[in-house]
């Protein structure tokens, strides 16, 4: 705070709003915020999941064995929410395959594996040093083509967020970075304040907004100083220093903090005339427009006491986590945890073979002593500590009961989906209940139920349509039979002496095919018989029934 007061610039510490709840976990940002961002050696391979953001994946444009340049597009943007992907360095496409990805589930997704050739050879770049006479739609196109997604966490495609056609009250640039340990944005602000402000001005130009609120937490005096200098005397960009409290960097919380307004449930900030972008995104936009460089790398905080060298690194997208750990002097303890993201919202990785993706802001390898695991879960004693810290003023203890009881209707009535999963409730729970985990499960289940319901509805329609069709066909068949019978009668009357024609079904089958079919049936029968011998005799009956 003292740092900000010594500067006679537009540093506005008067915060309008306030958000309820919140916690003050130990910050531990020092190791990462005090050292410059390191450059890493090129890893052996880069693993690029085709889908790194919300929405469908794009179409792969390269083939195995193909040589690619740095910045070359690897996938084509999908339909609505897609984003293209680029080669972070030059090299050879080694594989296109399923690979565990940066997701809590550890489930595999399609990924392009590049083996770097070490040349780091750029392909074509379309730099655009002066964007002011370029049409906004073209700028959005450039941002889209650069593959920029929100680097703060959710990873929503930036161009699509910017393209919303509504007048803005404020453009908010989020440099709060409230999670403990993480100092990626902090360090980026310290080292690239000018780029960030330049990026901010591009965003401002695109959204035609004349009021920018740039928010930084008051525990980052160096960043505040750097940004304040970079802003200079620009009257449209207001630096807002917000008090340190987790989760003030959450989109909804920061909006309440800066403007005093709440984003209505189920709506977007856009609906109340606000748009928020992360400082990292602003930086990426600047690189994309002014330098023509797509999003190829990002700052990742690598921290935790199992590492000797803690700090921030520039990591190419696709860098395996193992590489980051190796480069940071990793000495794992027993039952080591590797966390992607911060201690509050990050998820543990089952394997270090997963890559850095666009939204990876932190990799942690904490020791047990540093971040003790919670003890065994005890029963909720309804102490209300969780409700006191919930920034969304939910009733976490109630949600927990309902989640355990699987009462999904009631969960929705208690606004489960307004939970931002910040983890403050579980952090303070004296019974050490993994509350957020219950909510995530419940949310997944609610979504699943909705999916099942839609599917059931679809199935019902198809079933009914089928029944209708069968009924219709039956009627038609009956009609045909009736007609045929009449015909036959007539014919019989007319040609009473003519013999009946043969109508055997099998006659028109080609002999070879039918032999193969017979063989297949015989095979299946043998199999079933063997099965039946093992199982009960009833099975046998059913097998016989099948043939009829």
């Amino acid at each position, binding site marked *: 705070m003292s740092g900000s007061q010594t500067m006679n610039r537009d540093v506005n510490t008067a915060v309008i709003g306030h958000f309820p709840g919140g916690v003050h976990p130990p910050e531990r940002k020092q190791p990462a915020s005090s050292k410059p961002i390191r450059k890493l050696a090129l890893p052996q*391979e880069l*693993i690029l999941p085709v889908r790194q953001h919300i929405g469908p994946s794009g179409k792969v444009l390269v083939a*195995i*064995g193909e040589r690619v340049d740095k910045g070359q597009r690897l996938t084509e943007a999908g339909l609505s929410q897609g984003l293209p992907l680029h080669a972070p360095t030059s090299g*050879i*496409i*080694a*594989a296109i*395959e*399923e*690979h*565990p*990805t940066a*997701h*809590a*589930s*550890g*489930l*595999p*997704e399609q990924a392009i*594996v590049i*083996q770097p050739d070490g040349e780091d050879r750029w392909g074509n770049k379309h730099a655009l040093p002066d964007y002011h006479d370029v049409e906004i739609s073209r700028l959005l196109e450039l941002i889209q083509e650069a593959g920029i997604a929100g680097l703060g966490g959710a990873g929503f495609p930036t161009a699509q967020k910017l393209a919303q056609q509504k007048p803005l009250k404020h453009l908010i640039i989020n440099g709060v970075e409230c999670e403990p340990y993480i100092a990626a944005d902090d360090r980026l602000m310290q080292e690239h304040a000018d780029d960030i402000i330049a990026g901010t001005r591009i965003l401002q130009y695109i959204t035609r907004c004349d009021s920018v609120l740039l928010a930084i937490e008051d525990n980052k005096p160096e960043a505040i100083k750097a940004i304040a200098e970079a802003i200079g005397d620009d009257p449209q960009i207001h630096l807002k220093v917000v008090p340190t409290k987790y989760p003030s960097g959450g989109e909804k919380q920061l909006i309440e903090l800066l403007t005093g307004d709440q984003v209505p449930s189920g709506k977007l900030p856009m609906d109340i005339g606000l748009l928020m972008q992360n400082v990292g995104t602003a930086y990426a936009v600047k690189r994309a427009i002014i330098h023509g460089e797509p999003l190829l790398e990002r700052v990742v905080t690598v921290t935790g006491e199992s590492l000797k060298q803690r700090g921030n690194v520039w990591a190419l997208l696709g860098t395996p986590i193992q590489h980051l750990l190796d480069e940071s002097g990793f000495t794992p303890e027993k039952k080591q945890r590797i966390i992607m993201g911060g201690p509050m919202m990050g998820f543990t990785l*089952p*394997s270090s*073979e997963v890559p850095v993706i666009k939204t990876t802001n932190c990799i942690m390898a904490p020791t047990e002593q540093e971040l003790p695991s919670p003890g065994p879960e005890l029963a909720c004693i309804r102490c209300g500590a969780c409700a006191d810290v919930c920034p969304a003023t939910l009733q976490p203890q109630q949600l927990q009961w309902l989640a355990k009881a*699987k009462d999904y*209707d009631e969960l929705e009535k208690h606004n489960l989906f307004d939970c931002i999963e910040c983890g403050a409730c579980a952090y303070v729970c004296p019974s050490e209940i993994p509350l957020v*985990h219950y909510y*995530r*499960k419940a949310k*997944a*289940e609610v979504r*699943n*139920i909705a*999916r*099942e319901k839609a*599917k*059931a*509805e*679809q*199935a*019902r329609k*198809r*079933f009914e*349509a*089928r029944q209708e069709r069968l009924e219709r066909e039956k009627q038609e068949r009956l009609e045909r039979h009736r007609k045929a019978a009449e015909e036959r009668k007539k014919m019989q009357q007319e040609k009473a002496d003519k013999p009946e024609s043969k109508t055997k079904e099998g006659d028109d089958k080609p002999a070879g*095919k039918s032999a*193969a*079919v017979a063989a*297949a*049936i015989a*095979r*299946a029968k043998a*199999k*079933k018989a063997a099965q039946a011998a093992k199982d009960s005799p009833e099975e046998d009956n*059913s097998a016989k029934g*099948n*043939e009829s």
Partner: protein
Amino acid sequence: MSLFGAVIALGVLALIFGVILGFAAVKFRVESDPIVDQIDEILPQTQCGQCGYPGCRPYAQAIADGDDINKCPPGGEATIKQLADLMGVEAKPLDDAHGEEDVKKVAVIREDECIGCTKCIQACPVDAILGAAKQMHTVIEHECTGCDLCVEPCPVDCIDMVKIKAKPETWQWDLDTVKENIKANSIPVKVVE
């Protein structure tokens, strides 16, 4: 005399109330609630027949007429709970005489073994199998309800019921499965020179 008065008074009162009730019965008649539709809405529409009724709708009708609510294995616990809420009865465990709740599955035809007999197509209650006589058949995965009614009629046993693969977006946050996910799917990276 007073006793006689009581009889008269009560008789007259009853007459008046009877008249009012008669009036109300005609004036405020409410259409009966289509409870069967509501039940049918809850059922998973697999049309699998495990409940002992030919399809979901007949079972819905049966529940409305007082049958047990715990006969639907595909719907499982969740469906029983919803039915219990709707019918105002106690939820009870699935009656395992009708089968057990299982993970969601889809039918997959081993296409090289299919002889194109169309028996499975006739068996599929939701028309989720494509194909024609003597042509290879295939299951439209996202239309398949996993009822497994097609398995039995197949003369060459070429239909498998396969667990629906979890995807990151449909994953149910079951942390116990993470290690298996990683183990089952970790593929060594091939290097092509």
